[in-house]
C-alpha cells in the first residue's frame, strides 16, 4: 500500500491520532508518577478500570464510549484513593497497596463481567478487547472524547504546574508553605486514571503500565529540568504511539498495542545508551577518555622526574626505557604528547651507541609536567 494511501486510510488515521493522544497524555502525566516513585500506578489503575467498564456498559446500555470511559475513570480514581488510604493509614507499603488495589478491583470487574454475561466463566469478546486493546475499532467520535480528556489533563497540569513540581520534589517543605499537600498528592495520583482511560482502547490493560513509565524514563535521561522532561516525554510518547500505529498498519495481523510498547521501549533503550551525560555509551567514552588523560599525565611526569633526577632537562629516553618504566607500551601516549608539543624525538648524539631516536621533554612539556605535579600537591622537583 502506498504511503499516500496509507495516510489517507480512515482507520489508520484514527488509530494514529488516538495513539498520539495517548502518548501525549501518558508522557506528561507519567512523568510525575515516575518521579514520585509511583510508576506502577498505571498498571494498577488500568486493571482497576475493568469494573468501571462493566458498569459503564450496564448504565450506557451497550458500547457507549462516554459511559464506559466515565465508569473506567470512576473506578480507577476509587482504586487510587483506596491505595492512598491503605498506604497512609496502615503499615502496608506502597507496593502492597498497589497490588491489593489492582487485583481486588480487577477481581470485582471479573465478577461483574460474568454477571453481565450470565455465567460462571468470564468468556471472550468484551474482555479480550479490554485486555489487549482494540485500536482498530477506534471511531472518530471516540477521538473527540479522548481529545477532550487529554486537553483537560494538560490544562490541569499547566494550571497546577508549580504545585505539582514542589510536592513531587519535597512534600514536607511544600506543607510548610501552606500547600494542601494531601489534596495535591491525591490529585496527582487520581489523574493517572485520565491517562489510563485514554489508553484502554489503544493498548489494553496490561500494557498501560509501560505507557505511563516508558516515555518519562526515556525523557529523564536527556532532560535537566522538569519542564523539558515533561515536554520530551510527551514527544517520545507521541512518536512511540504513531510509530506503533504505522507499523501495525503496514504489517497486517500484528496487534497495535504491543507494537507501540516495543517502539517506546526502543526509545528507552536508545536513551539509556546514548543520552549525553547519562547514557552508557557516554559513560564508557568518558571513562576511556579519563584513563587516557591519566596515562598521558603519568608518562609526562615520569619523564619530568627522570630529568630532574639527573638534573638534566634534556634527558633522553629510549622508547624501550619508557615502556619498561610503565610496564606497558607507551608509544601512543608519547605520540600524542608529541603532537601536543610536549615531547619530541631527537637523534642521539653521535658518540652514543644506537641510531634510534629518543624521547625528550620540550620546554613546554617541562612546564606542563610541573603544573600537573603542582596541582596534585606534590613536590615539583624531586
Amino acid at each position, binding site marked *: 500500500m502506498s504511503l499516500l494511501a496509507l495516510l489517507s486510510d480512515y482507520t489508520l488515521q484514527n488509530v494514529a491520532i488516538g495513539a498520539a493522544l495517548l502518548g501525549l497524555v501518558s508522557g506528561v502525566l507519567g512523568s510525575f508518577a*515516575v518521579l514520585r*516513585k509511583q*510508576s*506502577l500506578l498505571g*498498571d494498577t489503575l488500568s*486493571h482497576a478500570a475493568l469494573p468501571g467498564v462493566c458498569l459503564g456498559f450496564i448504565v450506557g446500555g451497550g458500547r457507549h464510549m462516554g459511559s464506559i470511559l466515565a465508569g473506567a475513570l470512576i473506578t480507577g480514581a476509587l482504586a487510587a484513593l483506596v491505595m492512598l488510604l*491503605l498506604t497512609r*493509614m*496502615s*503499615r*502496608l*507499603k*506502597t*507496593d*502492597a497497596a*498497589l*497490588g*491489593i488495589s489492582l*487485583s*481486588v478491583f*480487577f*477481581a*470485582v470487574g*471479573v*465478577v*461483574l*463481567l*460474568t*454477571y453481565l454475561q450470565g*455465567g*460462571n*466463566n*468470564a468468556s*471472550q469478546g468484551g*474482555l*479480550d478487547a479490554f*485486555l*489487549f486493546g482494540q485500536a482498530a475499532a477506534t471511531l472518530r467520535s471516540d477521538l473527540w472524547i479522548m481529545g477532550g480528556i487529554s486537553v483537560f489533563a494538560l490544562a490541569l497540569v499547566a494550571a497546577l504546574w508549580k504545585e505539582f513540581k514542589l510536592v513531587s520534589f519535597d512534600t514536607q517543605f511544600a506543607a510548610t508553605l501552606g500547600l494542601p499537600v494531601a489534596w495535591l498528592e491525591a490529585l496527582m495520583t487520581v489523574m493517572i486514571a485520565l491517562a489510563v482511560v485514554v489508553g484502554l482502547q489503544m493498548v489494553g490493560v*496490561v*500494557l498501560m*503500565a*509501560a505507557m505511563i*513509565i*516508558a516515555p*518519562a*524514563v526515556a525523557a*529523564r*535521561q536527556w532532560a535537566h529540568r522538569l519542564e523539558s522532561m515533561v515536554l520530551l516525554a510527551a514527544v517520545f510518547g507521541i512518536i512511540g504511539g504513531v510509530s506503533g500505529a504505522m507499523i501495525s498498519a503496514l504489517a497486517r*495481523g*500484528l*496487534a497495535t*498495542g*504491543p*507494537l507501540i*510498547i*516495543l517502539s517506546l*521501549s526502543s526509545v*528507552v533503550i536508545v536513551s*539509556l545508551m546514548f543520552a549525553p551525560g*547519562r547514557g552508557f555509551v557516554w559513560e564508557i567514552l568518558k571513562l576511556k577518555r579519563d584513563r587516557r588523560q591519566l596515562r598521558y599525565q603519568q608518562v609526562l611526569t615520569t619523564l619530568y622526574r627522570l630529568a630532574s633526577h639527573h638534573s638534566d632537562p634534556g634527558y633522553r629516553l629510549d622508547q624501550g626505557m619508557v615502556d619498561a618504566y610503565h610496564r606497558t607500551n607507551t608509544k601512543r601516549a608519547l605520540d600524542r604528547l608529541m603532537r601536543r608539543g610536549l615531547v619530541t624525538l631527537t637523534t642521539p648524539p653521535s658518540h652514543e651507541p644506537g641510531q634510534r631516536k629518543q624521547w625528550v621533554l620540550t620546554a613546554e612539556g617541562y612546564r606542563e609536567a610541573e603544573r600537573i605535579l603542582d596541582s596534585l600537591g606534590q613536590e615539583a622537583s624531586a
Partner: protein
Amino acid sequence: MITALFNDIELMIMLVGALVGIASSLVGTFLVLRGTSMLSDAIGHSIVFGIVVVWLLTHQASGPLQIIGAALTGILTVFLTELLVSTQKVKKDAAIGLVFPVLFSLGVLLINLYASDVHIDAHTVLLGEIGFVWLDTLPLGGVEVPRSLLSMGAMTLLNGTFIALFYKELKLATFDEALAKALGFAPGVLFYGLLLLTSGTAVAAFDAVGAVLFVAFVIVPPSAAYLLTDSLGRMFLYGALISIASSVSGYHLAVLWDVSIGGMMAVMTGVFLALAFLAGPRYGIAAQWLQRRRQRQLNESRTLMVHLYNHEDGPEKAVENVTQALREHLRWAPARAKDVVERSRQRQLITQHGERLQLTQAGRRLAQEILEPGVSH
C-alpha cells in the same frame, strides 16, 4: 469413598482454590515483607511470553515443560528488571513496569505471527477458569484427579518445603539482608529461588484462576496477615486460613449469584483484608483510634495532676486549683475540662470540693513521678 471425594465437584473446586491461595500466600508473604510484591504481577503477565515460546518449541500447551518454561521466564523477568535497576538510571518500580510489558508484547506478537489460530489464547491464560477444573483430569491410582489439583498440590508442597528448609535463612534475609549476606546465606540466591517458585506457582495457577487473580492470592492474604500479627510464623498461618476462607466463601457466593468463581474468591480475599484493616486488634483503624484516644486522655489526666501539684503549696492555689483555671490557663474547653475532672475523680486521683480541686495522695504521687521520673518518693 475416595472416588466419591474426587468426584465431588464442589469440593474439588474449593480445594483447588484453597491450594492456589495457600501456595501463593506462602511465597507472597516474603514478597510483601520485602516490598517487592508487584514482581508477582510482572511475572504473572510476562509468563505469556514463556508459554508461547514453549508451545512453539514443543507444541505442549500445559504440563511440566510449561511449568519449567514459566519458571525460566519469571527468572528472566526479574533478572532484566534488576539489570535495569543496577544501571542506576531507572528506579526499582519503574524498572518492573518496563520489563514485563515488553515480554508480554513479544509474547502477543509471537502469537499473532505463528499461533494465531491456536487455542492457546492469552485471554484464558490471564483469566483461567476454576469452574472447569473437574473437566481436565488424570487417572491416578484408579481415580480421576483434576490436573489442577495435582499441579497446585505439587506447588504447595514445593513452596512449603522450600520455606521450611530455609526458614532461618529466609527470615534473616528478609529482615536484615546485610547480615544475611555477611553470614554467607546468599540472600540473592535465596530470593531468586523464591521467585522461581513464584513463577511455577503462577503457571500452575493459571488453569484455575488466571494471572491477575493469582496476583490477588499472592499479595492480599499475606497483607491482611501483616495487619494482624508481628510474627512471621503466624503470618503464614493467617495467610493460609484467609486463603481457605476466601476459597470456600467465594465459591458459595459465586454459585449463589451466578458469577465467576475465581473472581469471587479473589474478591473475598479483599473483603478479609478490609476487615483486618478496619478491625485488626493492633493495627486496625479502630484499634489505632482507640489507642490515640486513650493516649490523649492519659495525657490530660497527667497534665491536670502536674498542674495541681505545681500550684498546691503556693499562694495562687485558690486561683489555680480551681475548675475555672482549667479553662483559662490550660485552655481546655468546658466540656473537656469537665470530662478530665470526672475521670480523674473516678480514678481517685483528685477530690472536688465545690469549685476547688484537691490532689489525693495517689494523685500527688503520680505528679511527682512525672516531674521527677525515677526518683523515689
